[in-house]
């Protein structure tokens, strides 16, 4: 049953991802993206990464996609399609992407992975949190601090970029 669920999810993900990319209505595109991301969260859930799934939904769905939808609201008119692109562009990109896909899959299929035999560690919030804030081996406190700095600078930077300059206000 779980296997079936995975393949259903995978099919949905690929379908919605494709619709995201091909859709000519930008808002729908965003909704498709949202669906894709939610289903990916489902995949995480199946991989026993419930915490990651929740994060995925909170940050991607609740944050990023909402942000994208907001900018869609601000920059597009409801009920209008975005203009299509010349066919050559589609063909070029499509061929290249397909080639890449074929190449990677070709390599992947030939490769055999060796799973670990060690006892698994549960990805609970407690475990994640302990390792995240540990400063011994395999601790992630330094990247954590760096990321917090990064977020701060992104915050300040985006405010500065989007801020109207004074003369513009007049």
């Amino acid at each position, binding site marked *: 049953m*779980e*296997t079936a669920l*995975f*393949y259903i999810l*995978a099919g949905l*993900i*690929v379908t919605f*991802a*494709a619709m*995201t*990319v091909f859709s000519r209505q*930008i808002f729908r595109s*965003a909704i498709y*993206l949202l669906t*894709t*991301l939610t289903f*990916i969260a489902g*995949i995480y859930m*199946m*991989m026993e*990464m419930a*915490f*990651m799934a929740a*994060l*995925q939904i909170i*940050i991607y769905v609740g*944050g*990023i996609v909402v*942000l*994208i939808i907001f900018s869609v609201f*601000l*920059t597009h008119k409801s009920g209008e399609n*975005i203009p299509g*692109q010349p066919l050559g*562009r589609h063909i070029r*990109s*499509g061929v290249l*992407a*397909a080639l*890449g*896909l074929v190449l*990677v899959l070709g390599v*992947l299929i030939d490769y055999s*992975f060796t*799973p*670990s035999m*060690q006892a698994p*560690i549960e*990805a609970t919030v407690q475990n*994640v949190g302990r390792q995240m804030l540990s400063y011994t081996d395999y601790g992630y406190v330094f*990247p954590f601090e760096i*990321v917090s700095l*990064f*977020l701060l*600078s*992104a*915050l300040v930077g*985006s405010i500065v*970029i*989007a801020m109207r300059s004074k003369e513009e206000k007049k």
Partner: protein
Amino acid sequence: MEQVPLLHVLILSTTIFFLGMYGFFARRNMLMILMSIELILNSVNINFLAFNHYLYPHQLEGLFFSMFIITVAAGEVAVAIAIIINLYRRFNTVDIEDTNTMKY
């Protein structure tokens, strides 16, 4: 989901990756490009978590990496959208090929 081979998960992520690639190349709308980038990032996240889950279940490294990727994606989107909004104010369009006043 032990019955699902790792390979299938990787095929899924690869497909998403190249779908995102296609979107990145083919679309001219900046928001579309941004969404394609999100797809690409997500496929990478799937890979990290899948490797973590299948190959190194005794560690949480993949989880941490994807967590940081999500964080960076959030920052990236914030800045990108700030830029897009600003460009929209200047050019009244989000088409990437119309915002070419710095060309040549």
